[in-house]
């Protein structure tokens, strides 16, 4: 029977189900987790002996740059990133290449080898959504979805200025459906539009050119309509002033904006039977906190500003965030924040690509190397870990490298090792610039994350935050049969031997997707079916009609016709709409 499997005697970490290292069996039938398999089903089922191993739900990455125009811009401009990092084809796999920006096949395989089964693309420019979907469709091994970039959208900015939140909500509902995307991404609100004139914004109350809306207007407006519509995930914010010394303050202040907006996810799906309430209560999801937590006033007095943000997050309940860790080495920075990348060009003189997208958004790409002997880079390394270690409740944080901005996702095992092992951190302090110790608080932090906490920050909370825990990030009955089995015996684990942690997380003993073993000890053994999720919000026909009248009027500023604007379902692998009945 396909997708039917029994995983016996493993130490299971399923935080959403409040299972913390219990020795137990996991059963999957037809791709879904079940309580047990009948004797006759057991006869046909594959059985895996997980004795002495760690069993977790399949990894979920809620913020990664893996598909779309800017990622491909990175691939195209970086042959030097690819020519020594490649994989040959096998009878079942395609070949590929690319270290920080792998080609799609390679990217899918690499995630799968680490035990990941679900990855969400962090930024989809609406007009280029077809491209993002083409790449996601071609990415093997992973269920996927993408967040629509809306923080500098002309139509929304106009509605916000008019104070017309209802029409703005109708527009967003239409856009998510039109481009088959999952949630709202807000990048450098109001600033990217200014970049259309070579400018930026510097303060939350600074109105941008022409549209005359402020970052605060946009964050507040998006957060409000997000909950009006009942979108599964909170507004996903890339805050203003990213990458500038001292930016931590504007980040903290941005997080204050939606404090009083109540989360109202309204996902109309069958929920896996988790013990914990799987619904999010946060109204904002801050991304790559590290890049938005710079302290000091210049590069000379640069320091970590993480604590200013984590203190606020610890005191509040409406915020969740991912870290944006910096594991040193080669990276490619890529973001919807065009002016931020221009600043990096001015700083480094490197290769720099930029694409402004008409009426919508923009992006920038630049190759980057994080060096241990560079003072700022070494502080950034410490900061990424501070973000995760200073947040007391692991349910408020998610581990990412903002791949490939802080470093490629294949470095996740290394980051996990730093989180779990103080010795790993101390050994790295020995190798890197002393600013890492002097300008951050990490050296004094002795917290070592448990496997349960690792399971939270690498799958359970990523899934819960984005509203996917009805099927992902848990092994509760009814969940997707996505499992990662690692060669770690929790009873015998010595975290000071962090190399063994890295090895175990690099190549899962088994990665199981929908009840099928797809990768085993670093080798891809099967290519599963995959799904693409998007949010399908039903709003009233009248609201949609009124809104579309405006949209049609303004469509003359595009260079593509209204009829040719949408993203057809053919660009999605197994399109899977998440239905929502909006209360607008």
């Amino acid at each position, binding site marked *: 029977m396909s997708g039917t499997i029994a995983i016996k005697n493993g130490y299971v970490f399923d935080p959403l189900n409040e299972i913390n290292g219990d020795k137990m069996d996991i059963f999957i039938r037809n791709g879904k987790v079940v309580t047990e398999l009948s004797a006759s089903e057991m006869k046909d089922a594959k059985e895996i002996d997980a004795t002495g191993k760690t069993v977790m739900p399949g990894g979920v990455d809620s913020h990664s740059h893996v598909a779309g125009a800017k990622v491909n811009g990175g691939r195209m*401009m*970086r*042959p*030097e*990133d690819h*020519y020594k990092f490649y994989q040959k084809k096998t009878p079942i796999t395609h070949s590929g290449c690319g270290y920080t920006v792998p080609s799609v096949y390679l990217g899918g395989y690499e995630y799968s080898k680490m035990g990941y089964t679900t990855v969400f693309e962090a930024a989809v420019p609406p007009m280029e959504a077809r491209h993002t979907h083409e790449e996601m469709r071609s990415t093997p091994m992973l269920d996927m979805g993408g967040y629509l970039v809306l923080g500098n959208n002309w139509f929304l900015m106009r509605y916000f200025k008019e104070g017309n939140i209802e029409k703005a909500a109708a527009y967003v509902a239409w856009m998510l459906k039109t481009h088959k995307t999952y949630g709202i991404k807000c990048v450098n609100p109001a600033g990217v539009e200014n970049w259309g004139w070579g400018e930026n914004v510097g303060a939350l109350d600074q109105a941008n050119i022409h549209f005359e809306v402020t970052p605060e207007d946009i964050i507040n407006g998006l957060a409000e309509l997000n909950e009006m519509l009942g979108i599964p995930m909170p507004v996903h914010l890339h805050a203003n002033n990213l990458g500038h010394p001292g930016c931590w303050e504007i980040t903290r202040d941005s997080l204050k904006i939606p404090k009083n907006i109540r989360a109202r996810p309204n996902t109309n799906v069958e929920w896996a039977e988790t013990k914990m309430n799987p619904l999010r209560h946060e109204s904002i999801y801050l991304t790559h906190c590290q890049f938005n937590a710079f302290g000091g006033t210049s590069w000379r007095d640069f320091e970590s500003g993480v604590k200013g943000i984590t203190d606020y997050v610890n005191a509040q309940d409406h915020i969740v965030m991912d870290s944006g860790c910096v594991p040193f080495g080669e990276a490619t920075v890529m973001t919807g924040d065009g002016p931020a990348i221009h600043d990096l060009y001015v700083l480094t*003189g490197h*290769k720099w690509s930029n694409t402004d997208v008409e009426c919508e958004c923009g992006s920038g790409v630049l190759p980057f190397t994080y060096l241990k002997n560079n003072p700022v880079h070494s502080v950034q390394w410490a900061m990424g870990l501070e973000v995760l270690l200073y947040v007391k409740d692991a349910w408020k944080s998610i581990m990412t490298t903002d791949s490939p901005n802080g470093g490629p996702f294949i470095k996740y095992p290394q980051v996990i090792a730093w989180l779990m092992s103080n010795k790993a951190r101390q050994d790295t302090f020995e190798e890197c610039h002393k600013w890492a110790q002097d300008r951050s608080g990490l050296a004094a932090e002795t917290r070592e994350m448990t496997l349960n906490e690792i399971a939270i920050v690498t799958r359970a909370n990523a899934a819960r935050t984005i509203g996917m825990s009805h099927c992902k990030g848990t092994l509760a009955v009814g969940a997707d049969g996505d499992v990662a089995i690692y060669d770690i015996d929790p009873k015998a684990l010595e975290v000071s031997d962090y190399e063994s942690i890295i090895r175990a997380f690099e190549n899962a003993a088994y990665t199981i997707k929908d009840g099928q073993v797809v990768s085993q000890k670093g080798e891809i053994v099967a290519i599963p079916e995959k799904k693409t999720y998007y949010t399908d919000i039903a709003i009233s026909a009248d609201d949609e009609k009124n809104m579309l009248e405006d949209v049609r009027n303004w469509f003359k500023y595009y260079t593509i016709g209204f009829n040719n604007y949408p993203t057809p379902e053919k660009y999605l692998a197994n399109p899977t709409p998440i239905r929502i009945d909006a209360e607008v």
Partner: protein
Amino acid sequence: MAVVTLKPTGNFDLTVEAEVITPDNFAGKSAQEIGQLLVWQGPKQYPLANYFEVKGDGADTTEETTITIDGDVSRVKRIGEGMTAGKVLVKGSTGMHAGAEMVGGEIIIEGDTDSWAGMEMKGGLLHIKGNTKDHLGSAYRGSWHGMTGGRIVVDGDAVNQVGGGMSGGEIVIGGSVKHFCGIRINGGLIVVKGDAFRTVGAEMTGGTIVVGGTIERFTPGFIQEDTESDIKFDDIECTGEYKKFTGDYAIPQKGKGTMYVSSVNNECL
């Protein structure tokens, strides 16, 4: 010292990729074992013995192993790629990527080489007695980091992109070059004894270029600082009077490169 002789005998209708031909791979192997090493022709691999008559065993160590290729191998690529020690002598011409990424040892090519000889070379000596084509000692596509050490000597001419992205080592061209000699270099030394057509030192941010002949079209972002005579870089001597320029000021905030241009051959500069 042991000499392994390879005499071309095979069918080279499609080019052959033979990165396996290095003293590192031949050391400690008998002639027969060497003949069983694999080379690529199209998507398939075949024994070296299909293409070469192999005579002589490798020495015990790489250092003591010499490879002599006795004939024309202009359709064989990647000879000596990545070698760390020992010696390769080619009594003919080679295909692309000869001595690419070599770390040490010595390659002497009596004929010509195709493009990409000594790409991203780190050490050792690559001596081409004939001519070579493009991208000598340069960086791979998209990289700004080319040759970092070692020396390349070309007795004849090179064509385009000599030493692209170079940051260390020396390239000495006995003949002439065409376009973009020293493009984007940030260190190291390039000496061209003959003429250069155009764009010498374009986008350079460091390092030194000497042109003994005539530059037909000068790169606009260079400014003359001085005149010097009989300049010397360790064992490399350049006699005569040179105009000393700095640049390339087309690249912002830099201009730390130095270019010496023969005064007598470039009066109008």
